[in-house]
């Protein structure tokens, strides 16, 4: 390291660190960290959830905010990648000093953030991830309003008799969410003596599934369960139609955004049925119809696609739950908010929100149960059967 270059390097570092250290003092707002995939394989869903969260925050601030202070959402992109999710979580906690988080959308992404919650003792509201591991691993800082795959499976079991499934194949995305769903549904099917055939998986950003679909076409199952994000789902439907796959298709996970399927997969989407946790097509079915209509109106006013509603309600419910917790905690402090979560009770668009203890004793996580619908697409329209 010769004399001259070290001078330059020293100067460069001092300059940069000086600029950083003098960050402006935090204003009076209460910061809430939001971690969503805004790029990468799950970009569409992550954007919808963030927009839903923004509507909730604006609504709350318009009504005077929380504890007299405005809520400020600090939204970070985890790029649909676990390591990025962990690093933006650390940035939100350490740098932006947020007392509470909402996020990470995909199960692998949420699982990546969880060690940071333990390390910095900051609670997080899980709005979408459905892998059971999240609430059974024993992380007391996790509060989930989306149903784990096991609950989804039991919910689905109620509707199984009218579907008369003989044998089912699976085509799932190759991560915690997909594999978790296949696992839970297989167990549930066996309990209802329904035979399980192929379990094919697809990489998160794979676009050409014609090989897997050709294999499934050759199998003798009568139903195909598909679990993945909406972008990949449209490809699966198009390629299934292209292969002439004549089979009943049911999608799980609640992130399928049926309207976008109709728009992009066209006729290919007809005859398929989907598990959903919110039915914007018929707001009266929601636990809070008035608020559901208001939310749908606000969503349309902002010019967002109607199709995104089945995803964005999660962000909306999530922020309202956090606001309720902060109000109960009395101060924007992580520990207080964490205890307050256990006493929160409100009616979300997706059903009543109340956290009961789940997971190993002493290290329980919060899990709230919500409604489940099975909707069908018939000649281009979503039909919500009276469950």
């Amino acid at each position, binding site marked *: 390291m010769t004399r001259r270059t070290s001078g330059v390097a020293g100067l460069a570092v001092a300059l940069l660190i000086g600029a950083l250290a003098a960050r402006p003092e935090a204003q009076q707002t209460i910061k809430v960290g939001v971690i969503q995939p805004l790029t990468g394989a799950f970009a*569409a869903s992550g954007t919808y959830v963030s927009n839903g969260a923004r509507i909730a925050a604006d609504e709350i601030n318009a009504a005077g905010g929380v504890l007299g202070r405005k809520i400020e959402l600090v939204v970070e992109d985890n790029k649909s990648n676990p390591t990025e999710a962990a690093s933006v979580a650390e940035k939100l906690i350490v740098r932006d000093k947020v007392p509470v988080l909402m996020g990470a959308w995909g199960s692998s992404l949420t699982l990546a953030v969880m060690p940071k919650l333990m390390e910095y003792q900051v609670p997080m509201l899980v709005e979408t991830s459905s892998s059971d591991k999240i609430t059974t691993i024993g992380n007391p800082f996790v509060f989930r309003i989306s149903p784990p795959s096991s609950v989804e499976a039991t919910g689905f079991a109620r509707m199984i008799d009218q579907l008369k499934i003989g044998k089912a194949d699976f085509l799932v995305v190759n991560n915690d969410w997909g594999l978790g769903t296949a696992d839970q549904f297989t167990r549930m099917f066996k309990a209802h003596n329904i035979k399980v055939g192929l379990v094919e998986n697809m990489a998160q950003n794979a676009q*050409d599934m014609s090989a897997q679909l*050709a294999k499934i076409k050759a199998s003798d199952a009568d139903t195909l369960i598909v679990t993945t994000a909406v972008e990949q789902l449209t490809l699966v439907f198009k390629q299934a139609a*292209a*292969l002439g796959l004549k089979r009943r298709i049911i999608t799980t996970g609640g992130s399928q955004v049926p309207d976008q399927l109709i728009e992009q997969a066209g006729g290919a989407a007809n005859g398929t049925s989907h598990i959903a946790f919110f039915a914007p097509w018929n707001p009266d079915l929601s636990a809070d119809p008035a608020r559901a209509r208001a939310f749908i109106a606000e969503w349309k006013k902002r010019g967002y696609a109607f199709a995104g509603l089945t995803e964005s309600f999660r962000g909306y419910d999530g922020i309202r739950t956090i606001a309720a917790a902060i109000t109960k905690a009395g101060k924007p402090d992580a520990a207080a908010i964490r205890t307050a979560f256990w006493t929160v009770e409100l009616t979300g668009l997706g059903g009543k929100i109340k956290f009961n203890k789940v997971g190993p004793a002493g290290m329980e996580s919060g899990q709230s149960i919500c409604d489940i619908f099975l909707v069908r697409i018939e000649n281009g329209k979503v039909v919500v059967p009276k469950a």
Partner: protein
Amino acid sequence: MDQLLQHLVNAVVLGGTYALLGIGLTLIFGIMRVVNFTHGELYAFGAYAVYWFVATSGVNFFLAIPLAIAAGLLLGAAVEYLLLRPMRGADIDTTMLVMIGAWIVMQNSEMIVWGGVAKSITTPFPESPLVVGPVSVSWLRLFALGFALLLIAGTYVLINRTKLGKAMRATFQDSDTAALMGVNIRAIHTATFAIGSGLAAAAGALLGPVFLVEPTMGDLASLKAFAIVILGGLGNVTGATIGGFALALVEEMGAGYVSSGYRDAMGFAIIIVVLLIKPTGLFARAERVG
């Protein structure tokens, strides 16, 4: 048996556009010895161009494809003129670093202009496939194959039958002598890069509607194009065509019978194996274009 037949059809349909990617790169790589990292971005640019023409400005789908190819040609010419012409004579590593810089700029510009969310292109083709016996294939993919074959034939004629083609082949074999014979080498390089980029844009324009259009779709296409070029031999248009179909077949069979997860690894396995056994590519007439 019909599953095998279906895989074969899938492979042939995909092979057409893979060949386009390969031919485009083999021209650039073969003639200009440039390891073109922006090839994938031209592929993505072609897809976005079709999306822009069809979705935002309502142009007819069949018109949008040639327009996208033309846009690809222009962008390729611009990249060559701005970045590669001043680099004439620089060693291969330096040009490669410039191309990596260009790749980063192009991909992130697409991210800003179009956003991270994947786009879908609606096409006038019916959803219900053409069914022939046990095999069925969508009309859109057949159109993509047909159009690709048309472009491949066109390129073949251009290279082997036209004056420009002759000049390109001369430049490929020995640019100094070609220059002595009055060939304007700089113009040939710009033209070659433009044609190569146009073909990549064409592949993107054809596969965009079949799959989805998103900013990082080019990365994999770039690496697959390299696999095809190496399989077919540097600068060998016929080799690239065969290489394109071969890669599609290996991928489809691998995904069908080995494991779908390793589909994309087939291309890279080919690169490593071929380079270590026969660096000049399987179809040994590597050093000749056409």
